[in-house]
């Protein structure tokens, strides 16, 4: 239960940051926090109190935790890193073109000009 509360609050904090912050870097941090929350949630779905690693081995007769969520989270972490790096690269690109990373200012600049210089 603890895990679920922690996971959901992490997701909540992340989404709150994404929705309220204008700074693109902060938005990406928010996404990253939400991702961590989701990963924790996934792990806790497969968690078993007192369970061991899901490896077939002699002498390990205790109940095992579910390996599928772990595999899923491993994948999700890797994907999250890749996406975050790519998003940061795009933020650098935004900074280069607009001179700011504040989303509202960027939007204002796009709306102000006709944007045909793309």
């Amino acid at each position, binding site marked *: 239960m603890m895990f679920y509360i922690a996971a959901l609050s992490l997701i909540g904090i992340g989404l709150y940051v994404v929705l309220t912050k204008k700074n693109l870097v902060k938005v990406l941090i928010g*996404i990253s926090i939400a991702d961590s929350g989701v990963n924790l949630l996934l792990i806790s779905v497969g968690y078993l109190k007192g369970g061991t690693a899901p490896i077939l081995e002699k002498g390990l007769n205790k109940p095992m935790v579910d390996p599928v969520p772990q595999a899923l989270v491993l*994948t999700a972490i890797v994907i999250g890193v890749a996406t975050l790096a790519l998003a940061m690269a795009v933020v650098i690109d935004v900074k280069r073109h607009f001179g700011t990373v504040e989303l509202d200012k960027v939007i204002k600049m796009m709306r102000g000009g006709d944007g045909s*210089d793309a």
Partner: protein
Amino acid sequence: MTLKLFDPMLMIGISLAIVFLMPIWKALGGKKLAWAVSVLLYAFNTLFMIGVAYRATLYPEGLIIKIGGFKPPFGIVLHVTFWGAVLSTFVWFVAFLSIMYASTRYDAEPADVYYALLTLLALGSSGMFLTGDIFNLFVFTEITALAAFGLSAFMKKKGTAYATIKYIIMAEVASAFLLVAIALLYGKLGTLNMLDAQQTLKTVGMTGAMVLSVLFFLVGYGVEAEIFPLNLWAPDVYKYVPEEVIALFISGSSKAAAFAWLRMWVMVFGVPQKMLQTMLWIGIVTFAFAEVMAYSQKSFRRALGYASLGQAGLVFVAISLGSELALKAAFLLMINHILSEAILFYIAGNIGEDGAPANVRIPLVFGFLGAVSMPPFIGFWGKIFLFMALAKAGYWVMFVLIALFSIVEIAYMYKWFISLYKGTGKMDLVRSFSPIMLTLVSFAMWFMPFVPKIMDLLDLAIKPFLQKGVM
């Protein structure tokens, strides 16, 4: 059996091998070799997927391919349906046309990365069409999304940077929702195999957690499938990103997300009746919003972008309705959308001062008529099926709304057609190859009603998705 050769895993494996060796092709023979290898790969994959589609016709419930020899539901499986195989063929075909088109794009540097991203986008969406496992579906979704972000930002212009960052933020939040949806599903059902989940769900029933899971899947795929209000990134991307990439977005990532929604909503969850109304209204609002916005656009590419959202909305309505007729409609509308919008986008990148180039006038006519679903085109039958399905289910208000906004669509498409038709410019011969090829394909489709047993194919396409007891 020679047919056993047509194993889609082979396509995925070969494509991945070639993508990751892309820098080596470039080092060996420069940009030209990287391009040539990609062209050959796409052509091969197109033909190969035709073979796979043919093989899939022999398995009415879909062909199950076990990966690594593990028995389902423990191992990952591909569930190759005729519908998925056809869409996958179209992805590789459009990718082939796009890379032919991209040979004239000298400003895309580094070119090997560009080709690699095009391949990954086509590969990821093909995977989404073919997979039968939700974990696998998630991985392919992310491959597609990452490739789409990369392609979207590739030109490093002002507009692309702005459009891409909005796209990434929306898609990433959506991907978090997708994972939560998967967690809920797995926590309740204990399986990620779609066919297994379908069976297990029948005993569990649509509990609160499952309803939440459906909603989160909707958010997760709504961004790529362009469902209102998650589609607000799309018009900017469609305006600024190169046209060959947009053609691939339309046939690849957007269709794949719609197909994933079909898999989840129809196949796994079996069209939950208590949420049906809501989904239909979301689709109708998407369609209506897109058509109204498209009507007021000053730029042709933005108008096309909104028109494309409208089509996505129709496909969403058809899928969500989930009856036999509606699924047939969804199948036809998807193909029509790929053909007509891709033609128009290829041309839209080459419009001069006075209109579209003169040497692609016939494709232009085909594109426009296809986009508004006129009679000889396949989209017409799709729309008729959709109307029939809505009427049969008794949704008369939605019937009227769709008819009404289709008229809006015809109105602005006609306006754009008139202003573009009289152009005198000339489109680069290499570039004009892509719209002309697509035009030939959509012309060939005119004769489909005369082919015997064509209706059987349509039945076959939707067979694996039909639920017993649904309308």
